[in-house]
């Protein structure tokens, strides 16, 4: 690796994500200004920062829910083929490649985004069946396995609207896992939950980190980020303020706004 980021050595030296000089604008507002990021296979990366720092936008660029205006991106060793105009601005995407890559990258959303017209089981089997072409039998077996994993197997026939937020988020995690993705993205997975429901979701995520899954988390749970991450990125007004091990970011940073931001957790 020729990384300028201080990443702890991990099980593998292939990269799940390699982003170079990403820029994302909404009109005149530049949300990401030249952000580079490497996520080694098998590692956990947390993106922290104040609201408006661009952390959710950065995460959503990694599965192209947001299309960056400039920069390069490789997911699972495959460079994204952007259509560019002569100035190098990204103007389009290769839809087929996009669908193929998205099948390898699963996202867990802040608002869960379960499909209300499917049961819990239906939510988990839908993408493996429609996107990966699995038979219903295999998809069901996979879904049962992951619902068991997140402790939601007994609710398989319920509809999402009848579950608590924490339960819905655990189903959403099972839905993401059932795609057996190379990379898991978490967009503030506990921010919409009642305080007493946060720990049940965090403990599921912690279990996944312990399994050595490749994950990128955007989170406000500082203690959690410090605890589970191999790499922490403090994003500050659209640029990487500090990046490194949890120790580098939480205890040893000379970046003033970063020190100020993490102070309550230290």
């Amino acid at each position, binding site marked *: 690796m020729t990384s300028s980021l201080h990443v702890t050595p991990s099980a593998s030296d292939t990269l799940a994500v390699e982003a170079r000089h990403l820029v994302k604008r909404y009109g005149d507002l530049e949300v990401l200004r030249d952000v580079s990021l490497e996520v080694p296979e098998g590692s956990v990366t947390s993106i922290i920062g104040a609201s408006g720092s661009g952390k959710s936008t950065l995460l959503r660029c990694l599965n192209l829910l947001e299309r960056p205006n400039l920069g390069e991106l490789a997911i699972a060793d495959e460079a994204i083929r952007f259509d560019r105009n002569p100035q190098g601005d990204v103007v389009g995407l290769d839809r087929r490649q996009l*669908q193929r890559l998205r*099948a390898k990258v699963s996202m867990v959303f802040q608002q869960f985004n379960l499909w209300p*017209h499917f049961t819990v089981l239906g939510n988990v089997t839908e*993408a493996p069946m*429609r996107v990966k072409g699995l038979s219903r039998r295999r998809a069901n077996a996979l879904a049962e396995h992951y619902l068991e994993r997140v402790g939601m197997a007994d609710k398989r026939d319920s509809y999402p609207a009848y579950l608590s937020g924490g339960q819905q988020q655990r189903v959403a995690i099972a839905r993401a896992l059932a795609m057996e993705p190379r990379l898991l993205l978490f967009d503030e997975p506990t921010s919409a939950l009642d305080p007493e429901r946060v720990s049940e979701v965090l403990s599921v995520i912690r279990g996944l980190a312990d399994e050595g899954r490749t994950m990128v988390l955007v989170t406000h749970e500082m203690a959690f980020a410090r605890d589970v991450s191999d790499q922490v990125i403090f994003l500050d007004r659209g640029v990487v303020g500090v990046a490194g091990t949890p120790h580098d970011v939480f205890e040893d940073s000379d970046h003033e706004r970063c020190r100020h931001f993490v102070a309550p957790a230290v």
Partner: protein
Amino acid sequence: MNTVSQEGLLDWAGPILQGALTTLEIAVLAYAIGLMLGLVGASARLSPWAPLRGLATAYSTAVRAVPELLLIILLYYAGSQALTALTNAMGLPGQIAINGFVTAVGVLAFVQGAYMTEVLRGAILAIPKGQLEAADAFGFSTWARFHRIVIPAMLPNALPGMSNLWLILIKDTALISVIGFSELFFTIQQAAASTRAHFLFYAAAGVIYLLMTLTSTALFARLERYVRRGQPISEEA
């Protein structure tokens, strides 16, 4: 007044039931085609491609602006004249008459499609964005996203409007009588004129339309319960 005329309600029961059946056939076919047109129209209205959007907007605006009676007459007479001119020009002599059933289904479906476009467009716009984003994030194809997520997610929003359109359609089939096609209303007119028992036959027509609409209202209510199966009871009320 039955005593005055030679024939009564019973003599006309057969033709009237036949007319009612024809009315239902027209309505069901026109509704099915209108629904397809509406799905295409709504997708076009929401398309990122401006020419397609413009075409769909023109369709739904123009059709909804013109009285259906006028459209029926236009398509029937102008259509048969145009076809006759066309075949004559190709060297085939004679008159072409458009089949009344085809005209009825065609015009009503065309009109339904325009209203349906707007009902479905609103229903699709009301789908919470996150549900569609989840489908995108998991790599759904455009078609899988449409028929597995968009359609079932918009149906709870669309069904009340769709049920309205169905009721209006049943009643609009009566307009077809102007081209002399013997659906329910035309048959009733014949019966009333022939027996001079006007009130009796028009009242019978009213009862038959009422039976059709009441039955379909019950069916739509069941359908709505089904498409709302994932939603808590409080929202059903």
